[in-house]
């Protein structure tokens, strides 16, 4: 009898708590986005809503489909989860709507710094921050008796000591895969050396400069301490190298750092030696050689207002402060949500923000520059051409693309 009462009480509590969390929508919601853990949480949160159909399409290929899926009228996707780099493509083609009225009506739980405003209009709601920063093996650094590196120059010294002592053959890890990843590592290093991608106020490229050459030379120096296959290693492959205990120092995404050593079969010394620090500087500069990122969601322009409202409610429900009470969710990312307490794993991203890291540029033509860098830098990294030639090739490839897109005459 007593048991029955307890069960009943528990059932009632469960019921009331679900009603408290209930999310009622009347309209279709369809979400497209990336697939890493924090975004899976957001997608699942939106699916809790009742009263309308909620679909999610979370895939690493989201950028190939989100624009096409929002250009139709009515749009297939009512919301795209994007980052500060990828919102630009949606802005360029004018497929997302300003959210000011919906924020005023339903967005009471949002903090001001979550609202991404472009020309005074709220175009997206950010829910997490991200940056690349140092991940290292404290046991190996203790063995050689050095502090965690604060600069890339110190990283090179430590790498040399680790190799010379015969601890690891290729102690440095890096997502240097030809294409997007390689370009991103160049961006980090280039900004760290004080470079600017474009001549101020124009779409003219400005990377064939002293900062560009120094950035490439540093990348080349680092690659000497990497697995010889580094041009095929993306973040996943680099993480696998770290988990296997082959890497002692690497620049890695915050969003992947928290769960780095939780995979199956990771050796105990890798789990125990796992440590995180802020991003490094380079060439005596003050600004870290890294970029700051946010991830957030948008609402499509070409959909009826009811669907837009339903989408806003569902997405807002998915990032309500409550979700942080689940410890597994709290460690998934550096959440921008109200009430977030940074965990030990979040220190890298926090230090990146505090040290004045530059946010990834939100410029209409930055994507073209990123693609050109990704295509043209591999030759230099393989020693096939000089840094000046590689940078001249990047500028030429970018210029051809920017002319096609109408950014340059």
């Amino acid at each position, binding site marked *: 009898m007593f048991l029955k009462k307890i069960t009943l009480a528990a059932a009632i509590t469960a019921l009331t708590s679900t009603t408290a969390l209930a999310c009622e929508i009347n309209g279709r919601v369809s979400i497209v986005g990336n697939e890493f853990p924090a975004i899976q949480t957001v997608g699942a949160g939106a699916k809790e809503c009742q009263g309308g159909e909620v679909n999610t399409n979370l895939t690493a290929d989201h950028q190939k489909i989100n624009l096409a899926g929002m250009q139709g009228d009515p749009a297939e996707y009512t919301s795209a989860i994007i980052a500060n780099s990828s919102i630009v493509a949606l802005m*360029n083609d004018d497929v997302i709507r300003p959210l000011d009225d919906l924020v005023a009506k339903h967005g009471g739980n949002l903090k001001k710094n979550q609202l991404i*405003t472009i020309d005074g209009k709220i175009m997206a709601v950010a829910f997490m921050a991200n940056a690349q920063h140092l991940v290292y093996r404290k046991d190996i650094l203790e063995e050689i008796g050095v502090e965690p590196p604060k600069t890339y120059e110190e990283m090179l010294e430590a790498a040399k000591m680790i190799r010379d002592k015969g601890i690891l053959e290729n102690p440095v890890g890096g997502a240097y895969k030809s294409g997007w990843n390689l370009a991103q590592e160049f961006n980090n290093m280039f900004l760290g050396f004080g470079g600017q991608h474009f001549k101020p106020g124009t779409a003219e490229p400005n990377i064939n400069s002293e900062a560009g050459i120094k950035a490439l030379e540093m990348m080349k120096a680092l690659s000497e301490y990497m697995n010889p296959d580094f041009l095929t290693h993306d973040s996943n492959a680099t993480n696998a190298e770290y988990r296997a205990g082959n890497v002692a120092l690497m620049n890695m995404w915050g969003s992947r750092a928290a769960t780095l050593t939780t995979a199956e079969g990771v050796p105990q010394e890798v789990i125990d030696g796992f440590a995180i620090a802020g991003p490094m500087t380079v060439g005596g500069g003050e600004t870290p050689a890294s970029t700051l990122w*946010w991830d957030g969601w948008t609402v499509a322009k070409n959909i009826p207002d009811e669907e837009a409202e339903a989408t806003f409610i569902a997405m807002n429900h998915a990032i309500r402060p409550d979700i942080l009470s689940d410890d597994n969710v709290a460690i998934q990312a550096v959440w921008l949500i109200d009430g977030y307490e940074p965990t030990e794993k979040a220190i890298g991203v926090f230090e990146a923000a505090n040290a004045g890291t530059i946010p990834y540029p939100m410029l209409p033509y930055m994507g073209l520059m990123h693609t050109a860098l990704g295509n043209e830098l591999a030759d230099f990294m393989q020693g096939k051409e000089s840094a000046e030639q590689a940078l001249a090739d990047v500028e030429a490839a970018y210029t051809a693309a920017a002319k096609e897109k109408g950014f340059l005459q």
Partner: protein
Amino acid sequence: MKHRTFFWFFLPTGLAMLLFIAAPIVSVVIQSFYTPHEAVLVTVENCGPFGCKEETTIDQEATRELREAEPLGRFAGFSIYLDRGHLAVTEVGQAWQSSQSVGEFFGKLGNLPFYRALAFTLTYTFAVTPTLIVLGLMIALAVNSLHRHLKGLIIFFSLLPMIVPPLLGSLVLFWMLDSRGILGSAIQWLANDPGLSLKASTPLTWIMLIVYGVWSSAPFAFVVFYAGLQTLPSDQIEASQIDGATRWQQVRFVVVPHLMPLVTFVALIQLMDNFKVLEPIVGFNAEAHAQSLSFFILNDLSGETWLLSSASATSVMTLVGVAILLSPVLLRTWRDFKGKQ
């Protein structure tokens, strides 16, 4: 067949071909001659979690007017075909004028994406196609001479490379060829060089892709030739045996001539397929060493900002390339056809 009957018989197929083959090609060709409007840029203040910043963005109001006035975009003529990402006419001219020797000129040409991709694509096509035809024929002859109880099993295993999706097949091989993988370690042991990495060397990557290309397409040639062998008239073989032909002479003078139309067919299909090589480059993460025209199309359409006109121009050029490659074979078939009439 009467013309009238033929017309009604062919109409559904013709309509489908018009709709699904001709119309998309026409649209791609049109797209390749137009580029997006000039972007009207404005500087605005953007704010987010990391503070506010003056940044450039596209003026949507002004751009919308331009778009509505000319929905297709700006007419660009052949300018996309001639720009650096494609035929790179200006750059080739400069390279020619500034080069002292032919070798230097080709070195400079290899720095331009289109010509670099063409070099790999043609090497791949002309290495893979003949090899897979010879290999396919050898497998077909071998399987054909097996005992009938064994045939079914062997045919199944020979077809496996074709059954495995190309991307998956290349990924599996990619992992095995890693310097820590089973094949990669074996090669290091054979070469007696512990630092050897297939993925870090351009020539080895090319060889790896070519071997993969032969491995994945040989079963297709095998199946076609094996089917052809079943139609081989036994009286011709017996006659050649009575004449004292060796096994090699039988293959050379009876079997191969009988299969010749099929060889043409396999060559046609494989030339087309290999010229459009894409999956192995993606699967082997080989873009630092080898690129193809199809890879450019994928690349143009997977960046944060799409280059539709550039991708269309590359598609049209792929089409032209395939037509040029196939022209000798097609011409030959046409002559044979004329000869028979």
